[in-house]
């Protein structure tokens, strides 16, 4: 019933029961929500963008888990593109953060509160 080593999981992907995938999906959902809560609560712009990276990461984990269930490489291929978008987003976001910091000498999102319409 309980097995420490499941060598089949490591070499050739074999079909697995859905109950093996479910805990990974739970971790993915929890990670996504933690990122969301962090994005909503923290005031530091750098940490807010770090939280979006965490949400990307959670999405990647869900993709890989579902890809594992379907035994295809599509899930992993999509994670490559998620990484790509995450990298692009990080570059843009950090350039923006540096620019905004130079304007107001503050990293707080509330330093720009006059922007809200």
């Amino acid at each position, binding site marked *: *019933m*309980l*097995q420490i080593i499941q060598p089949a*999981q*490591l070499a*050739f*992907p*074999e*079909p697995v*029961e*859905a*109950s*093996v995938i*479910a*805990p*990974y999906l739970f*971790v993915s*959902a929890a*990670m996504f*929500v*933690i*990122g*969301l*809560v962090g994005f*909503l*609560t*923290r*005031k*530091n712009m750098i*940490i807010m963008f*770090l939280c979006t990276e*965490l949400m990307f*990461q959670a999405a*990647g*984990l869900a993709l*890989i888990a579902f*890809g*594992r*269930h*379907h*035994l295809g490489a*599509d*899930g*992993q*291929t999509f994670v*490559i*593109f998620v*990484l790509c978008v995450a*990298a*692009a987003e990080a*570059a843009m976001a*950090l*350039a923006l953060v*540096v*620019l905004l*910091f*130079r*304007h107001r000498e503050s*990293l*707080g999102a509330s330093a720009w509160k006059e922007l809200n319409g």
Partner: protein
Amino acid sequence: MVRVVDEEHASLGIGLGHNTRDGPVRRVCSKRFSPDFGNERDTVEQIIDPIALYLICGLGAAGVALALPRRDREGGRTMTIVGGLLLAVTFGLGALMLGLKAGASDSPLPNYFFYPFAAIGLGGALRMITHKRPVYSALYFIMTIIASCGMYLLLSAEFMAFALVIIYAGAILITYLFVIMLATQAPTGDKDELLDEVDAEAREPYLASAIGFVLIGLLTAAMFRGIGDLPQPTRDTTLPQAEDAVLLNLPRKVDRVLERNDLLPEGWRVARDAETGRAILDVDARTITLELVDGEDAHGHPNVIATRVLTSEEWPADLSANNLDRLGYNLLNDHPMMIEVAGIILLMAMLGATVLARKHVELEEDLKAAQARKLGAYIGDQQGGAS
């Protein structure tokens, strides 16, 4: 040796006690799971008790709300410790409930290594959003990344696991650390007053945590309900070698492996299909057809002089499609357009970042005046000290 289990009578995808570990049992899905909607709730219940799930979500929300940063004079440190303890209890409870259910219903569990990786990953993520110092947040995020790499490995996505370490932990996070160092004044003491104003306290911690963990409960319940209806994986054959089917499309790799095993005499190579260029080998029967080629004919086709067949006894042990082969073939064969799109996205991001970052910033008048005063006071201090 291969037993085939017909799942016609299995109404649920999980928890029916088909132990797949006692031999190479292969599943042939003769039809999809029966659309018996009364089963939906049972699917959740076979993974975790719904009451326990919602209790865990509530506890987690309370823990996160307490652990989010607040000023020390409002009891920030104590609250953080209490929140951390609550979260630890939540983790323990979650693992316990999952284990109890899985033990009772006899459905297979993930590899044991999953549990430490999940705990480290989620713990790192929580500490990342609750820590007051941005640098520590970034370092905890690296911990989360490495833990999820472990989970990728357990899900047999080896290439992505190492790519994640290189790209995320190696490149993206280092960029974050650079920007944090560029854009924050490092506090020297452990005191709250020295912290940046923006990091000292959270905005609306209770509301955000409540909403977030309601979302977690909903997401989890929805996923666990639907997971019994997932279609079974489709393959060309049901034999274990089916993963090697991609080798048909990689004749040069087959050539290389055969050569390494001294199975290719001079001038021989794996026979290629004349039209498609695919290798002629049978991954189920484990036979490979070789051909002896001598130059090309008038149409540019290779001149095949002789062929012979390698039997299954001669199939080299290391001739198999690994994760990288399958991923690379999938990426280049099935999603060629997305590579172009990714290239454009990255190029645009690079251009945009360059344009944004090199823009010369005109400080506003009052900020300029404040900086001038600061500088003046500094110079005055130095002159005062010198004289």
